[in-house]
């Protein structure tokens, strides 16, 4: 177990990080996050005793670091740093065996037990098949795994990693982080890793140590951190991006310079359409969506104007009319063929109505609507259809809706889907 009390760390007389209090238990995975130059590396190096604290104390298994010999610390703390190592033609086995340094005698000769530990470390990160390869000839991801194995060969109680996956491809990232997570539990060691990949950190870590402007801002579970609006505050995401608590992910707000598109969706059929429209710069109007529908949350995150209905209620007349009116501002509509049932069958009706009133309707996703302008089987067909419409219709004010379309009364023959709101 590693603990810090009132820790201040830095290089000069002025600390980069101060007032750090933390305790990490064995088997706990802590992700250290924060903007660049917030002091993450400095803090981790101090915890690993590679930097002398400017104030405060670091305790390892209850004893202050200053009272421990370098070798005793090395038997308890393993580190993986960001600097790239260039050990010439050292093989993977030889490199990982260096991790036995604090256990071997003055000549560095490996005992059977040392060899066993090296192999165990290689196996834990899944690189034992590389043991005779030359380290410098491996891929970046493999090298990083070997460096982790080297730290594990020290048989540490605490594993400290500085940006272990920053320059790796997505597969290697996930691969390495998941192995770290597993090793953390299986070996029952405390893991502290600084990560820039906040979305991965949120999905992986037991707790997030948030470092900002030289202070520890919070030390909570990821869910707690998100619930408190942590990500938005940390990265100052006003205007440019949204952080979705539901998806634990960042959404970008694109600049929208084109004319609005109306989307009729539901049950997740619209998610990719929304993302595409958002990326292409079309303002989105959508409806009628039930609150809590996955399309509802995606569209809201992307900053769409959403006409919505209460969850598990049939679409009301008010919502229907609101949607119809909103659709008047768009130059085109897209129907994403959602599964239909008593609660949302009005949406198909809405599509038909718009088509009959002269709104060019693009049907995507295999459905059929009478009077549709075009059917698109792929998203790129949707995109090119919109381009085509845009060229034929020079920018102008809101489209005039035909008088016959002002009212929906003539369509409202059946009962169910068009029930008034409060019945």
């Amino acid at each position, binding site marked *: 177990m590693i603990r810090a009390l009132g820790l201040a760390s830095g290089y000069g007389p002025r600390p980069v990080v101060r007032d750090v209090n933390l305790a990490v238990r064995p088997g706990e995975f802590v992700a250290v996050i924060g903007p660049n130059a917030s002091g993450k590396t400095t803090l981790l190096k101090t915890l690993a005793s590679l930097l002398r604290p400017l104030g405060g104390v670091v305790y390892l298994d209850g004893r202050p670091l200053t009272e421990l010999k370098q070798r005793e610390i090395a038997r308890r703390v393993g580190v993986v*740093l960001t600097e790239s190592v260039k*050990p010439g033609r*050292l093989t993977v086995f030889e490199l990982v065996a260096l991790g036995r340094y604090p256990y071997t005698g003055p000549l560095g000769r490996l005992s059977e037990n040392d060899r066993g530990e090296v192999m165990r470390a290689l196996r834990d990160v899944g690189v034992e098949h590389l043991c005779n390869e030359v380290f410098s000839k491996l891929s970046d991801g493999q090298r990083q795994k070997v460096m982790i194995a080297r730290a594990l060969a020290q048989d540490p109680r605490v594993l400290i990693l500085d940006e272990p996956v920053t320059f790796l491809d997505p597969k290697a990232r996930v691969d390495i982080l998941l192995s770290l997570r597993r090793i953390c539990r299986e070996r029952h060691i405390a893991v502290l890793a600084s990560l820039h990949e906040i979305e991965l950190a949120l999905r992986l870590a037991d707790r997030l140590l948030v470092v900002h402007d030289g202070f520890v801002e919070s030390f909570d579970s990821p869910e707690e951190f998100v619930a408190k609006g942590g990500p938005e505050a940390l990265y100052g995401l006003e205007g440019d991006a949204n952080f979705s608590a539901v998806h634990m992910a960042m959404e970008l707000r694109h600049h929208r310079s084109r004319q609005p598109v109306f989307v009729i969706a539901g049950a997740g059929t619209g998610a990719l359409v929304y993302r595409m429209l958002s990326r292409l710069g079309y303002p989105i109007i959508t409806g009628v969506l039930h609150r809590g529908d996955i399309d509802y949350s995606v569209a809201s995150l992307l900053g769409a104007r959403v006409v919505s209905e209460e969850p598990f209620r049939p679409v009301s007349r008010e919502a229907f009319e609101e949607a119809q009116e909103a659709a008047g501002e768009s130059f085109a509509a897209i129907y994403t063929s959602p599964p239909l049932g008593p609660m949302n069958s009005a949406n198909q009706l809405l599509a038909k109505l718009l088509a009959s009133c002269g709104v060019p309707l693009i049907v995507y996703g295999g459905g059929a609507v009478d009077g549709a302008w075009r059917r698109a089987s792929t998203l790129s067909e949707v995109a090119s259809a919109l381009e085509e419409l845009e060229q034929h219709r020079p920018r102008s004010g809101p489209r005039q809706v035909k008088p016959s379309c002002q009212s929906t009364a003539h369509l409202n023959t059946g009962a169910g889907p068009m029930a008034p709101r409060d019945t």
Partner: protein
Amino acid sequence: MEIRAGACHRVVGASRQRARLELLLTMIVVLLALFVFSILIGGGTLGLGEAVAALFGWSSPENNMVMHSVRLPRALASLLCGAALGVSGAVLQALFRNPLADPYILGVSAGSSLTLALSILLGVTFGWWGAYSPYSLYLSAFMGALAVTLLMMIVSGFVRSVTTILVAGIMVGYVAYAVTSIVQALVEIERLRVFTYWILGSFSGARWSILGPGLPMLVACVVGSMLIAKPLDALLLGEDYARSMGMRMGLARLGLVTLASVSVAMVTTIAGPIGFVGLCAPYIARQALGTPAHRTLLPASALAGAILAMSADLAARLVARPVELPITAVTSLFGGPLVIYLLLRGRSIQA
């Protein structure tokens, strides 16, 4: 699974190990052959039988004398100095994490020469021995070597670039040589003759009077270096990693700097500044053995250094017979191009 994984290391590892052992044995054989060659050849060539007889004092008094006070010390000196240079080169390269580190290039030899010049020409001493005592010479050479090594350590703390350190070292060397030249200019011509030849580097001056006290130290440096393989290996990963694995950086640095400085000081006192052996020997050892692991690399560097120094000494004696060439003239012929090659290749250390 465990057995297979363990076996995978052991099988391949063992065959590699055997290949390396064979290489080391080959180097030892070559070295012995050079040694024999070296004591056979001189002003007059002795036959093998005569040489062996002279070695044991059974030949004519002149032969015995030539063998014992000229050839044997010279052969021993070139062998041990070469080995010491090889080792100090390997140590400096690990310490500076720079494949171009070499006592000559970093100016360490020049530092030694300067303090030696002060001792020999001006009688400045650092110990309680007289100015011409070998101990006094060794000590002053050590002071110069240590001062420059420490200076270069400080420089390398600020500069990361391999080439910048190289240039800084060469400049330190120039300054030291400049001061040495000024000292030389101030001294009357009589005392200079020996010195002028010495400063070009040559094993011709190796006599028991100077070699005797130094030999045990040289042997200790070469053998003792085998004990520092472990920290040197850890340094392959850089200082932060080395410390994180339990290495006490300050102590290790002190030990390594001292070892390298003592080696260079001994060599410079015995034979003058000798260039490039410390650069080439570790390079050859690494290329031949295919590993940067110091448990193998250090003995191999010592052997390669000894072979290089002995062959260079033989070449210096034979090429323009009866005139002897300065030894650095010979070593620079292969050392210079190697530096250029390493710079052009531009890869980082110990590839």
